[in-house]
């Protein structure tokens, strides 16, 4: 065997070199423009923090403590004025088309100031990513253009994602568990559409959104094979908002209950149905070839979404790790202990260094996951250099002239699905999903850890709302829970990244 051949075999041994070095692999493929976009996104977030978030974050949190039913429309409108709700929607669909790689650094920056505000802005892209993951181009186009219109007219149009149910939290994140889950949100096929019954809970931005991307199930006995997604607009008969949760933190971003009572949803708002894979012509043939049945299609949909959103949550962890670190540093500089500034005590320097390390580790993790997702995830085509530059260089107006008509054609949806869904290999799905979970677990655990350390250092000052650190801790704890608890994510890391070294192991079958 040639030396090169041998090396390549050696590198494929566990842990696979390419799999562990996402950034290295991405470097050669990544368009240079992405770096500039990341810089601009972070600068923009810093500007927003200074002009809006810094003064508003505490006021909003206090207000929510006083009145837990308050809806912060003024924040939604402000973020809308800043253009945040269309920045990462591709120009093909009427958005500003920023590179998806720039969203995580932007999120970290925002999160270093306030996680509630970050979530209110970021979770719109969670809703959007479920919508995008279905690759129903007609509806993506229609809803995205409403978001853009809302930006032009000053009437915000946000998208929420509705997955969690009262009896299915962790279960809704993994098809293996879904097979045994007690889901209740059912979509029954009727003439011309579906009738949906059930409740969704903990839906971030629910009350503030115009469109809701709803995950339901056609057969409650076989939810793993009958996942179905809809786009539901406010005002749809049978759809209403229920209670707003009283959360410990991230109070400025409402968590809502969505209630569906005999809610009729016409066929045209059905995004994708796992059970109708067989009716999808070319696509069903491609799926068969890739060994993807309805169940695998459901998992691919979940993985498309979480591979994009979990690194974002990791970035929120990095952000709050930094926020807590910065508050601790400020405290150490202002506080005199034993006749000299705390910052000049060796032990405090080591503690601050540890906090800096934690924030850096969180950032490294989400960046690796970001690279993995940009190479393997649902938007990987946009990272392809010729497409990237074409998409970046052409003004939105050019896209606006041609795309809406094209996007309405079923053939375009089929083409995209062939390229993105059928074109994604099992390995790609596995690597992107595994890294996303890794970034989520690492970033959020490190984020909470830094908040704990900051409060320990600050003592009495750390307890006070007006000193900000206690809010960091309350806000950060949610990061370990949403987008899959860190326990579910650890199991996913096992399934995606560890199990290849233990082929006999079975995840989710304990």
């Amino acid at each position, binding site marked *: 065997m040639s030396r090169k051949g041998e090396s390549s075999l050696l590198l494929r041994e566990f842990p696979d070199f390419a799999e562990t070095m996402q950034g290295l692999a991405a470097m050669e493929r990544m368009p240079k423009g992405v770096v500039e976009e990341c810089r601009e996104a972070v600068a923009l977030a810093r500007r927003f923090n200074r002009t809006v978030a810094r003064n508003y974050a505490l006021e909003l949190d*206090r207000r929510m*403590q*006083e009145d837990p039913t308050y809806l912060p429309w003024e924040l939604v409108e402000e973020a809308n004025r800043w253009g945040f709700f269309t920045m990462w929607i591709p120009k093909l669909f009427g958005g500003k088309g920023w590179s998806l790689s720039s969203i995580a650094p932007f999120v970290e920056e925002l999160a270093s100031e306030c996680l509630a505000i970050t979530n209110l802005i970021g979770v719109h892209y969670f809703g959007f990513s479920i919508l995008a993951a279905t690759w129903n181009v007609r509806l993506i186009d229609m809803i995205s253009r409403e978001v853009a219109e809302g930006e032009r007219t000053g009437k915000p149009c946000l998208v929420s994602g509705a997955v*969690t149910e009262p*009896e*299915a*939290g*962790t*279960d809704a994140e993994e098809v*293996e*568990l879904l097979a*045994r*889950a*007690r889901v209740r949100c059912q979509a029954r096929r009727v003439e011309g559409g579906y009738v949906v019954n059930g409740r969704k*809970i*903990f839906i971030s931005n629910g009350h503030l959104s115009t469109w809701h991307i709803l995950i339901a199930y056609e057969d409650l006995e076989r939810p793993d094979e009958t996942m179905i997604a809809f786009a539901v607009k406010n005002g749809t008969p049978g759809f209403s908002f229920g209670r707003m*949760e*009283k*959360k*410990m*933190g991230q109070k400025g971003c409402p968590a809502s209950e969505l209630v569906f009572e005999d809610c009729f949803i016409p066929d045209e708002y059905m995004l994708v149905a796992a059970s109708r894979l067989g009716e999808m012509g070319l696509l069903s043939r491609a799926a068969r070839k890739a060994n993807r049945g309805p169940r695998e299609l459901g998992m691919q949909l979940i993985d498309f979404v979480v591979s994009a959103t979990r690194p974002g949550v990791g970035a929120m962890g990095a952000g709050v790790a930094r926020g807590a670190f910065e508050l601790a540093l400020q405290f150490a500089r202002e*506080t*005199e*202990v034993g006749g000299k500034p705390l910052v000049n005590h060796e*032990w*405090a320097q080591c*503690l601050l260094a540890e906090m800096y390390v934690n924030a850096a580790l969180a950032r490294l993790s989400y960046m690796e996951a970001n690279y993995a997702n940009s190479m393997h995830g649902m938007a990987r085509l946009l990272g392809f250099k010729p497409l990237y530059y074409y998409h970046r260089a052409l003004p939105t107006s050019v896209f606006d002239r041609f795309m809406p008509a094209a996007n309405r054609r079923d053939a375009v949806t089929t083409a995209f699905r062939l390229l993105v869904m059928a074109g994604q290999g099992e390995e790609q799905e596995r690597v992107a999903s595994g890294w996303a979970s890794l970034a989520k677990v690492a970033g959020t655990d490190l984020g*909470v850890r830094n908040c*704990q350390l900051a*409060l*320990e*250092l*600050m*003592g*009495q000052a*750390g*307890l*006070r*709302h*007006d000193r900000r650190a*206690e809010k960091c*801790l*309350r806000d950060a*704890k*949610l990061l*370990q*829970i*949403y987008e899959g*608890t*860190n*326990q579910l994510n*650890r*199991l996913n890391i096992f399934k995606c990244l560890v199990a290849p070294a233990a082929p006999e192991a079975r995840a*989710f079958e*304990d």
Partner: protein
Amino acid sequence: MIGMSEELRLLEGMARDFALKELVEGREERDRYPFAPLFEEVLAKAHEVGFFSILSPEEAGGAAEPVQALCLVLEELCREDASLGGAVFTAALSRELLRQAGSEEDLKEACAGTASPREALPAFPSFHNPSDTPLSLRAVEEGGAYRLTGKAEYVVLGNVASRALLPAGSADGGWSLYLVDLRGEGVEIGEPVLSLGLHACPAVDLLLHGAPGELVGEEGKGEVYFEAAVDRLSVAAAAASCGVMKGSFETALDYARQRIQGGREIVNWSEVRMILSSMAVRTKAAEMLVRGAAAAVDAASPGWALASRAAALQVQEAATEVTCDGIQLLGGNGYMQDYGQEKRFRDAKQLQALLGMAPLRKLRYIRRVVDGERPWA
């Protein structure tokens, strides 16, 4: 517990009954303070049964119980609602400081108004060691009387009690303790400070403009009294945290038995068991630590003061971790106010700051050992 006297067992049962009867229902609403009314009724009942003067001598209206008794009461109360625990601890601390200062007269006076909890609760900034950072509050003597000027931060119960025990810097560079009438001249009481935890045990910032203060003990000896009180009461702070851990574990276990994911009760997921076990082990260890240290304090066994301080550092930190898991096991539900777990998490972190910044308490601990004090025989 082996070796627990009948009397202590009765007291523990009484505190348990009190907690279940008074502290469970309405906990969420009470925790909305300052955006909901203060739980004056509960404070009055706690005062009635003597929770605010457990350690005080009988002649001062107290029950003259050992530190073990205070620990049992705090543990039981905090299992259900640590806010009342915060009030009981602060009352015990301010009275202990008076006792350490040998101010028998002051002590009697502080306990004289036994009819009102406001009188029985001398306010004190119990989340701060006045020796840690420079004090803004200064005392000036004028013809044998003292006047206090400056800011006293985060005075616990400062808007509830009629008097506060306040540390103020003196001319010699040290600090002393003064009793200040909070309704008297020159005292400006701030709004309740919105805080992480113990919402119903409020703290306020006080602005003093030449307010009359009654010197407690000797001038410049504040640090001596404070450190002596910390020796005895660190274990009580640990007991409060231990109670919160117990509440968090019990709620998590109940939930894990009922919640079904992946087609079975989550208590049967082995990773959930691992987390539950880690919570249970750390909580049991905390209980043993608290009880052992409290017994050592009461018996003045060799190394008792360090035992008390070690218990606080260890248990307070463990409580922040256990209550974090306590939320985690309930997932999204744990993060919502309905299940009480998020409150326990906040309360545990708040309790960790009792008696001053944890890292400085660690350094003080080891300084004493380095200086020759023996942690064990």
